[in-house]
């Protein structure tokens, strides 16, 4: 049987009377967005922590938004993404003095979805590389301590804290990843596999999943055409959109030149007995004139016609 637990990570941009905007532009656009994803057969919905107040306001409450999802064929909200990509004096995971603030933020986010059955609290465990370097074991341990603490708290609310690594983050090489996981409690801190981010950083996502299968609670299925060979990850203030050598890092599954071996990963996932969600993510799909809608359809076509054959 083909894999059915596909969710969608919310980055969408749509055309509105006020130009391109996120669907949160208004309730009508948000409704259309949910219906569009529903039409393709997505059953899970991942979103950012900062959208929760908007959704509560628009639908009356976050549970009411989830009921709208369910009226349109979704199972539920599957993941909440939280991040501190840019270090400040208030929030920087490698700075222990900021941990109380980050912990409090995380607790507030988790409380906003209390009563639902959101599975993943997805975090960027570090900020940008250039703000942390030199990256030392001590700094990685400080970050691990934070997420151990947050992980214990989120489990009490029924959610797993799961770490999503960026190619431009302070934890990016295989050695750094292994070091970070060695300092975190496997019962409290989990692994979220973003196929493109790892590939750009020169890390094989299939091997990462193979090695951390027991701690893996989710995926972002997206592709890339480029491995970072110019230390773009160190570009201040932002390597994702300002790296001089690469103007677009992320692509939907199924494009020519894609570097991620999705069929191999899918085979590995199926063989492993993993039964969680697989999430499609399109990050900055509008670069170069693309559209999120078409990118999502093309990715879903790839799921239905390529990955479905692998997962049967």
């Amino acid at each position: 049987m083909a894999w059915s637990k596909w969710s969608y990570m919310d980055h969408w941009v749509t055309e509105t009377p006020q130009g391109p905007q996120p669907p949160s532009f208004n309730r009508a656009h948000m409704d259309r967005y949910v219906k569009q994803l529903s039409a393709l057969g997505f059953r899970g919905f991942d979103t950012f922590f900062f959208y929760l107040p908007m959704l509560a306001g628009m639908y009356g409450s976050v549970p009411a938004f989830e009921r709208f999802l369910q009226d349109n064929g979704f199972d539920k909200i599957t993941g909440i993404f939280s991040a501190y990509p840019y270090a400040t004096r208030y929030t920087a995971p490698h700075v222990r003095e900021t941990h109380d603030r980050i912990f409090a933020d995380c607790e507030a986010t988790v409380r906003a979805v209390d009563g639902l059955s959101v599975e993943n609290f997805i975090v960027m465990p570090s900020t940008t590389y250039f703000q942390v370097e030199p990256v030392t074991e001590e700094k990685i341990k400080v970050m691990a301590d934070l997420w151990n603490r947050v992980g214990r708290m989120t489990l009490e609310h029924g959610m797993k804290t799961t770490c999503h690594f960026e190619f431009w983050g302070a934890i990016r090489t295989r050695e750094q990843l292994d070091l970070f996981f060695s300092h975190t409690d496997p019962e409290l801190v989990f692994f979220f596999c973003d196929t493109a981010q790892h590939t750009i950083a020169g890390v094989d996502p299939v091997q990462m999943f193979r090695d951390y299968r027991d701690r893996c609670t989710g995926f972002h299925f997206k592709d890339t055409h480029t491995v970072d060979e110019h230390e773009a990850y160190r570009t201040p203030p932002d390597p994702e959109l300002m790296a001089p050598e690469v103007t677009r890092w992320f692509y939907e599954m199924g494009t020519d030149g894609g570097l991620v071996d999705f069929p191999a990963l899918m085979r590995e996932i199926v063989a492993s007995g993993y039964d969680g969600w697989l999430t499609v993510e399109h990050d900055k799909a509008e670069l170069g004139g693309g559209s999120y809608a078409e990118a999502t359809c093309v990715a879903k076509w790839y799921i239905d016609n390529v990955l479905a054959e692998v997962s049967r």
Partner: protein
Amino acid sequence: MKDTLRWAYALNQWNFRLDVFVRHSDQLRALKTLSACGFDHVELPAGTGRWDNLARPEVILLNHGDHAGFLDFLRRGSVRGVSSVYWDPGQPVEEEGWAFRSTANRHDHDAIVESAKPFVEFCAGVGAEQLVVRPVGSAWMSPPPDAHGLRTVGELWNRVGELAAAVGVGLALHYDCLGAVHTEAELVGLLEATDPALVGLALDTAEFTIGGIDPVAFYQRHAGRVTHVHLKDTRYADTGQEYRMPGAETTMLRGGAGRRIERWFFELGTEGGLVDVKAFVAALRSRAYPGWVVVESDHGGNPAELAMLNSWYLQYELSVAKS
């Protein structure tokens, strides 16, 4: 879409300018989009020139070798076939020396029949069931046809219908809201001027509604003549004879004048939609309509977004199983 009705999707929305929908990779993305939305047959628009390589039969074949090669190309996007091809013989094309022809002019008939041949042959070659045609030109360019005029137009389409029938292809006259045949009486008159065995009607729900004809009631009265359907919605009816404005293709349909309505065609389920889509589809089901139902976005916004919304409507409001 798995249903008692056969569903297809019109590709015309992707090709909004002559040079934007040419690369096969772009076309495959559109085909994959429709496949992901549950559609496995497409209606092709007619076109002209080297860039219309999903529209002009000779150019399609130049790109893909033969009919089988073209079907193989569609199948790379998981689209299994072509439901139909739309063609307006009044639209000048490079392949005909940019000749301006009118179906109302008997002197143009031989040339129009000749120009229909590539389309008929292409439909037969790729297994498309219907050649869908614009039967008359725009109302603002000619007076309403009288009985004699309707007979003249009917004679032409009987000839083309005969040509198509000889190779197993149906011919469907597509009513549109700008056409010189505008009222229900004129449309019925045109149908009566044609041989039902050779010529059918393509009923476009939005075009009918804009033109002031109730598509449900019309279908109930003339189901036997309806051999093709375009399903889309509209929020407006032409209540002020805007179709008679000079250049109505832009002054009316693009809001250049009159009430300045810049968008007339909408996806199924649009807020304020005037077409009773559920009643219309129920009528098709009740009469076991055998033809294609082609969902059409028709230049209403982002093509992929509209295909997704139309797919949602079929699945959630019309209870059509996606697969």
